[in-house]
């Protein structure tokens, strides 16, 4: 495990790097650190942006009341890095219903063939793991999920689609994700969820928060329509 490194991220943020690779234990430390900073709730805190192996701490420099806000915030975060007794937060488990294949997941059959599996096995292996929302990015509410069965890694499309439907559950390389709204995208589409991942009208716009856990629940098309209608 490499020692944490702290660097500047512009005038009003620090980047705390806990590792250099996509790794579940490093990511868990990122979310634990984020939870401890959030728990301490310093008045200068503007935002905490977790990624796979790093955490950005955005601050309001005027509230740090010091000549060197980066040093001040860096010192604050360093103390929490070492503090394993402090709370590490709690993660919510979300069960995400997914209708696999057909018009809901155009790439399912081709992806299964490419992996040397039948479609049912691909569905079973994709819906088996407990995933973690490693980070949110690319688009508002787009979760990058850690936990994909490494045998299911699939290269991205050579030519990205111009229209990926909202709710598409997809694989891109060794990563899994869900497209919150219709957008362009090059990941392989296995299925769709009727759940609305991102809605600015909700007090909490994103269904999934960084650090949360996700399990996919296979459903049939009729259930998809029923859940979609009630959403």
């Amino acid at each position: 495990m490499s020692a944490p490194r702290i660097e500047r991220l512009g005038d009003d943020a620090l980047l705390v790097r806990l590792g250099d690779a996509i790794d579940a234990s490093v990511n868990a430390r990122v979310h634990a650190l984020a939870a401890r900073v959030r728990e301490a709730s310093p008045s200068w805190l503007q935002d905490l942006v977790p990624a796979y192996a790093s955490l950005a701490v955005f601050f309001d420099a005027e509230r740090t009341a010091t000549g060197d806000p980066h040093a001040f915030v860096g010192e604050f975060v360093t103390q929490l890095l070492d503090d394993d007794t402090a709370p590490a937060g709690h993660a919510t488990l979300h069960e995400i219903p997914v209708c696999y294949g057909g018009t809901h997941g155009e790439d399912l059959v081709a992806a299964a063939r490419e992996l040397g599996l039948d479609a049912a096995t691909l569905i079973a292996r994709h819906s088996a793991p407990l995933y973690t929302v490693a980070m949110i990015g690319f688009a508002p509410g787009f979760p990058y999920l850690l936990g994909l069965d490494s045998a299911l890694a699939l290269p991205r499309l050579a030519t990205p689609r111009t229209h990926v439907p909202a709710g598409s559950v997809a694989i891109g390389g060794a990563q899994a994700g869900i497209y919150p709204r219709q957008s362009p995208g090059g990941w392989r589409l296995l299925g769709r969820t009727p759940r609305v991942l991102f809605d600015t009208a909700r007090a909490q716009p994103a269904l999934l928060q960084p650090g949360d856990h996700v399990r996919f629940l296979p459903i049939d098309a009729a259930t998809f329509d029923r859940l979609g209608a009630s959403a």
Partner: protein
Amino acid sequence: MTAWQVLSPGLQTTVQDQGRHGWRHLGIARAGAMDPTALAMANRLVGNDEQAAGLEIAVRGPRIRLSRACRIALTGTEIQATWNGETLPMGRPLDLPAGELSLGPLRDGLRAWLAVAGGLDAPVVLDSRSTDLRGGFGGYDGRALVAGDLLSIGDAAPVKTSRRPAFPAWWIDVDDPWTVDRHVLRYLPSLHPSARELAGAVWHAHANSNRQGVRLDGAGLSGGGGDGVSEPVAVGTLQLPPDGQPILLLADAQTVGGYPRLGHVIACDLGRAAQLRPGEPVHFEPVIPAQARALAHEHAHRLARLRIAIAQHL
């Protein structure tokens, strides 16, 4: 409540304020004015809170029918502005009777900002009235203005009506025109091996630039990549993609990215980056953290003096 009718939209006119803060962990961009200071000072000139929403105008402005008298102000780069054919100046409160406001081409830069007394009354979405063009929300239906749009204006003190525009003889320059070179951006280099080489080269703003970022065109730098572990990025981050042509991230930038980072342009210079026209040269000047802090203080002091000056004149 009064409304303005958009007769023609201009090239890309958007409703913006000081942006969304505290939502980057959900992949939500800051958005907001590309030069937040310029919009804040335009708001001051019309007596608004600095957080009020105004219009950001790019390249060529809109034509707007004013249904009643109002007070507006224009900041940013020089824009050809007329009311019923009469020329209007920049950087001061302008009392306009009902009529047609025409904002033409921008000179010497790319963007200008318009504030109106009472502010633009766009709905607040995630704490801001700014347009998130990539996310498709906020501002006016999450998009740039089109002909026929009706812009609601918040309540403001009535403007004394006359038959012609009225404005004072004084004005403000948001940027100090004597000490600031628009083509120099100061940055804090990262530890990347090419971070300091950025300063040695001449770059040009690429035509394929937008509110998300300015692409830089020049002799490429080595050490670019596209397969790094994605990390948070910020407004002002300088990225180095595999082709060696850096990208300076601006207001609508994504929240995470996998390209190596060359450093960060200091916040008080980002408003100038918003003015770079395609093909214009730009130089980067490295600073150390202490200089960056001193420049930020200097900028804050200049703004404080501008606020006092405006308050004394209004």
